[in-house]
């Protein structure tokens, strides 16, 4: 039997918060997804880091399931998607944005630790499945997108882009 010609669909949709924390002492950043009704804001020590809450945004997480082979790609390591508007051609993402045609956009898949101290980012399997899913979905309407892992950004903190999150919808007025 040959490899599956995957037909991805979205499954395991989770609503929650994208929470950002920063270390007081070294300036490192991390983010995680919280499905709690209210995002956690506690400060805590973890090894050499002292993490403090920086902000949170409502977002949605999901996985992809193949209709043909029933395989599931776990996208738990994707904390969100950001439309790249990078203009730095020395950055791999910026160079890719520059190469795109007018009907094509580049999105960056954001992993939980965008400073990548261990080199780990969104899995290549996840990136491949996301590209296959969105390309199959958008081809009939004449649009193209490319999804890349955030480790390709020179600096995610300085990168120009629009993150797909919701800000302030649950804030108390």
């Amino acid at each position, binding site marked *: 039997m040959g490899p599956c010609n995957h037909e991805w669909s*979205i499954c395991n*949709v989770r*609503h929650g918060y994208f929470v950002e924390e920063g270390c007081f002492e070294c300036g490192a950043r991390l983010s995680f997804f919280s499905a709690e009704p209210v995002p956690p804001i506690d400060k805590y020590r973890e090894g050499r880091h002292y993490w403090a809450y920086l902000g949170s945004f*409502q*977002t*949605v997480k*999901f996985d992809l399931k193949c209709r043909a082979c029933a395989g599931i790609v776990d996208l738990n390591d994707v904390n*969100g*998607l*950001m*439309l790249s508007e990078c203009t730095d051609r020395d950055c791999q993402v910026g160079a890719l944005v520059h190469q795109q045609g*007018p*009907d094509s*956009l580049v*999105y960056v898949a954001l992993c939980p630790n965008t400073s990548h101290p261990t080199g780990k980012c969104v899995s290549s399997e996840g990136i491949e499945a996301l590209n296959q899913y*969105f390309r199959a*979905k*958008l081809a*009939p*309407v*004449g*649009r193209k*997108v490319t999804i890349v892992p955030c480790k390709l950004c020179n600096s995610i903190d300085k990168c120009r882009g*629009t*993150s*797909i*999150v*919701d800000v302030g*919808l649950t804030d108390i007025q």
Partner: protein
Amino acid sequence: MKVSELAQKTGLAAINEYKDREIERVYISDMVSDLIASARTNSVVVTLQTHKSLIAAANLAGAAMIVIVNGRKPSEDVVALANRTGIGLFSYDLDSWAFAKKLVNLGFE
């Protein structure tokens, strides 16, 4: 029904240059991130959001048209991004429910 026909029948004026695609369904949400997982291709999205992330998400959803309710208007950078995607961007003076009733009267279910 095409975007232009729906706009004409509901009295909307376009904010941007758009591709006149077929509208097949409706999705109403004020949560932009929800569009990726829930809105389907060839949808008209009804929302009160005006942020650029609305276009970023609607593009991934394959939306054909966005109607921003309560008379809100998007900024120029949002319009420019909508032009790139070909999504039709419109503003409606009343709320989502008022526009939803118009869509039901046009046969959307």
